[in-house]
């Protein structure tokens, strides 16, 4: 059958590019691998030439694949499954890229693109390491491209191609018609949950982070393969530093995204998907430190190998966890079941890198040189190594907990996550913070090899004192109010807070006391200050997060447990219902839900919330602001909620709509009752009375803007309810070319509609009054105050800048390029995290 209106050429081109890239990746893997094992220089050079051509062909083809997908999605060719599933006509152009990496195939492609870019740099820069390093990168490309291959092999589909046709993928009666395309008016489009600025920027950064972790791994392989066991550290270290900066930023972008636009109520929830990318980062940080130790002292080489290998292995393991659907019931945002063939391929990808590399490492471990002399306990390398070990153990702890669904699958057990997931992580990680904080504060003051005790004491005394004073001041003036877990836990938080503050101060001081202000060499100190600041921010904002939408302020008391320490009501139920136009007390604010309005996108609705803070005595307005949290109302009363946040320097007020489906749409059958009133007359309604103050011609006020030439009358009415509240209302009657129009006014608080029906002969007006027993319009919301959340973001930015500074120094970049790179990184990070919203 011939189908009408299909555009089949782009798909064929795209599929050709996929095949080309796949074949080229095989050739470049073979080429580089052979080159790395060839001793003869001439032959080696010719193999490298061959491999380079193959790799460049692969890069070209991958770009071709990407451009083709982009073309298909941006032209809304819904005959392609990918466009049908991820694109839609109303999708704003800025989300076109996002809809490409929304899908499984697109995100693999994104990863491949980054490997391509990094591979091109490595070809230029890695000199005599090229052959072994690039064989690893090429092999990874082979596996990633296999995921999007989509060809049948003995009846099994290998990989899922982004160029499949809708009519081949899904069944439906319309596909038996030649003109089926005329029925597919629109695609499904980008999931509304993901329509967010972070969806455009977060995946590329995170995937660059993922992709870059292959480089230390590849160098570790090269180190063993070439038997130059220690030399690989030198070129690998700058890459590891960059990788740590990018991956760390990518992870926290996810946190910022979750915080800003998902209604998890925070930036970190110990969700398996979050953990899966945190764990490789922690191991990478451990690896960075052991690599630095090796470069300075010759110690810790074996550990450096292990950490470089495990970082990438855990990246692959996290891919396995998040993309095979094995997390199932435990994660909010894991990918769905990808099909058995895909699961096996991802597992193969993991095994192909983990098993041979670990075997190679263990078989050569005796050959990897290790210092026979022990580190001294007064040496920097000793404490750095302890720190790395703690990072590594923390990573193992997190991944062991995250892998519970995997054990369940293997052993058929039924272990479920604990009652309080966060506490089960935090009670282990707070001690980790304490150790890491103290170690990172002190260790820089130690010298490599050995350090006179008097030197340490002299230099460290002042920062220690300062940190103690600041922590004490904090405890007095801004105490941590996290009583839920008892005094022991609170004490641990304070110790952790001290350790983190100590680390901030000690590392900042080290830039002057240890380095005499040489900023170029201060990368490590800056990164430590940033990391410690991040910890301070996490501790404060998480411990002192406050729910202000507790229902007790709504006049409803629920039976909940008493707090063991404060003996106050604990665990307030966190939702508050706001009835339209009724001011409600919430925390320090009086909040009024004013109105709702539609957004640009289909089904998006914004709610205007007016926050006012008044002086308790004088009732003077201290501040007021408006927030616009919004929801996407989808088919079948489905809803997704986007928070809105008022950001102060020291705190955020964070609100989101937790329930907004009211029956307002139902038609109201009650009729208006007509009252005839003169100015000053009174009319009664069930809950009070109202006075007609005046009849205003062509009103010009905050609500109406009539010109003197119009013919409009407004009845200015004041309502006095039984509970002695006053409300103003102003229904309007307007005569224009189209006849008589009524603009009704509603007093939601009193369930009252008012209509200006007309004028009588005797200077009276006809006022229509309608009472509805239904509550007309309300929303239910949650609101939090997050204190000092900006410390978290500032800390992250400083850490990333510090890591980049170190990388620049280790790579011996010229100061011009260094300055440009730093300026760019810094500006981009500041913009994204602190100003972009």
């Amino acid at each position: 059958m011939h189908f009408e209106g299909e555009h089949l050429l782009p798909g064929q081109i795209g599929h050709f590019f996929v095949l080309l890239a796949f074949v080229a990746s095989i050739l470049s893997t073979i080429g580089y691998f052979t080159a790395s094992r060839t001793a003869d220089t001439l032959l080696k050079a010719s193999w490298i030439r061959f491999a380079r051509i193959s790799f460049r062909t692969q890069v070209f083809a991958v770009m071709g694949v990407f451009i083709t997908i982009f073309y298909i999605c941006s032209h809304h060719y819904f005959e392609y499954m990918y466009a049908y599933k991820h694109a839609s006509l109303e999708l704003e152009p800025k989300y076109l890229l996002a809809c490409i990496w929304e899908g499984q195939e697109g995100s693999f492609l994104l990863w491949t693109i980054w490997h391509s870019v990094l591979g091109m740099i490595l070809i230029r820069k890695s000199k005599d390491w090229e052959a072994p390093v690039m064989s690893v990168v090429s092999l990874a490309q082979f596996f990633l491209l296999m995921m999007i291959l989509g060809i049948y092999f003995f009846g099994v589909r290998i990989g899922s191609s982004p160029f499949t046709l809708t009519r081949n993928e899904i069944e439906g009666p319309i596909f038996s018609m030649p003109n089926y395309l005329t029925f597919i008016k629109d695609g499904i489009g980008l999931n509304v949950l993901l329509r967010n600025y972070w969806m455009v920027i977060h995946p590329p950064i995170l995937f660059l982070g993922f992709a870059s972790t292959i480089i230390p791994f590849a160098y570790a392989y090269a180190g063993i393969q070439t038997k130059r066991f220690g030399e690989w550290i030198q070129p690998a270290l700058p890459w590891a530093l960059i990788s740590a900066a990018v991956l760390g930023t990518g992870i926290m972008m996810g946190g910022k995204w979750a915080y800003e636009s998902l209604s998890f109520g925070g930036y970190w929830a110990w969700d398996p998907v979050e953990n899966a990318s945190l764990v490789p980062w922690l191991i990478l940080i451990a690896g960075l430190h052991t690599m630095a130790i090796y470069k300075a002292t010759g110690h810790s080489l074996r550990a450096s190998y292990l950490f470089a290998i495990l970082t990438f292995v855990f990246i692959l393991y996290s891919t396995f966890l998040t993309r095979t659907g094995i997390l199932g019931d435990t994660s909010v945002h894991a990918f769905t079941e990808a099909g058995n063939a895909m699961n096996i391929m991802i597992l193969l990808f993991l095994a192909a890198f983990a098993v041979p590399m670990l075997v190679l490492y263990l078989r050569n471990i005796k050959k990897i040189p290790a210092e026979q002399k022990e580190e001294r306990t007064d040496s920097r390398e000793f404490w750095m190594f302890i720190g790395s070990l703690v990072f590594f153990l923390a990573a193992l702890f997190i991944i062991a907990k995250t892998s519970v669904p995997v054990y369940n699958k293997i052993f058929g057990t039924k272990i479920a996550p604990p009652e309080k997931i966060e506490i089960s992580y935090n009670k282990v990680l707070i001690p980790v913070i304490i150790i890491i904080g103290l170690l990172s504060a002190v260790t820089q003051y130690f010298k490599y090899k050995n350090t006179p005790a008097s030197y340490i004491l002299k230099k460290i005394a002042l920062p220690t004192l300062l940190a103690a004073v600041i922590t004490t001041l904090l405890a007095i003036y801004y105490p941590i109010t996290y009583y839920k877990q008892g005094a022991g836990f609170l004490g641990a938080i304070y110790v952790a807070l001290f350790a983190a503050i100590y680390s901030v101060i000690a590392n900042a001081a080290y830039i002057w006391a240890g380095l005499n202000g040489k900023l170029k060499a201060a990368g490590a100190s800056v990164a430590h200050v940033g990391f410690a600041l991040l910890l301070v921010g996490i501790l404060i904002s998480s411990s002192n997060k406050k729910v202000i939408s507790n229902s007790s302020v709504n006049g409803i008391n629920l039976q909940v447990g008493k707090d063991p320490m404060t003996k106050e009501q604990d665990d307030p139920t966190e939702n508050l219902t706001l009835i339209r136009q009724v001011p409600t007390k919430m925390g320090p604010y009086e909040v009024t839900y004013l109105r709702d309005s539609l957004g640009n996108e289909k089904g998006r609705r914004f709610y205007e919330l007016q926050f006012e803070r008044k002086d308790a005595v004088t009732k003077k307005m201290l501040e007021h602001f408006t927030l616009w949290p919004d929801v996407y109302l989808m088919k079948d009363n489905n809803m997704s909620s986007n928070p809105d946040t008022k950001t102060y320097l020291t705190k955020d007020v964070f609100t989101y709509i937790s329930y907004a489906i009211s029956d307002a749409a139902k038609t109201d059958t009650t009729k208006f009752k007509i009252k005839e009133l003169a100015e000053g007359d009174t009319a009664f309604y069930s809950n009070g009375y109202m006075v007609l103050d005046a009849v205003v011609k062509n009103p010009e006020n905050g609500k109406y803007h009539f010109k003197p030439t119009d013919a409009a009358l407004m009845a200015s009415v004041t309502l006095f309810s039984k509970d002695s509240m006053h409300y103003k209302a102003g229904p309007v009657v307007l005569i224009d070319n189209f006849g008589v129009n009524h603009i009704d006014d509603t007093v939601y608080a009193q369930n009252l509609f008012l209509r200006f029906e007309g004028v009588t002969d005797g200077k009276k007006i006809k006022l229509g009054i309608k009472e509805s027993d239904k509550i007309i319009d309300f929303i239910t919301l949650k609101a939090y105050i997050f204190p000092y959340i900006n410390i978290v973001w500032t800390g992250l930015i400083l850490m990333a800048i510090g890591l980049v500074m170190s990388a620049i120094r280790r790579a011996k970049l010229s100061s011009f390029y260094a300055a440009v790179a730093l300026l760019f990184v810094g500006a981009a990070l500041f913009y994204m995290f602190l100003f972009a919203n």
Partner: protein
Amino acid sequence: MKRTHIILLIAIAAMIVGLIVFSAGDFSTYDTIGSAQQNPGKFVHLIAKIDRSQPIEYDPVKNPNYLSFYATDSLGGRTKVIFRNSKPTDLEKSERIVMKGKMTSDHFECNDILLKCPSKYKDDKKELEKTISNLPG
């Protein structure tokens, strides 16, 4: 004592702490409604379905933090569920729910609900087929 031994000791100590943490009731279990009813007060995960023959009770104007409904599981267990929070918006649509909480004498006191909804899984082929066959034409 050699310093490598110190390091090893630290690592071992950390492992032991980790093991204690793991074993000391830090995990719960997936249970059926029936077995949860035999262990009232124990924190469990229930995998169940909403009983659609009974009304889902949620009136946010009266109390935005009270949701109650009935749930059944594949083994025929049935219980009333009370969730003191706002109603997850796609609750009615969900095919399967995972609830965390404790069983009391007459109802399941739920702390958290995880929904498994067809709509969340855009890659679900059946859902796409449904969408396609609902197209006009």
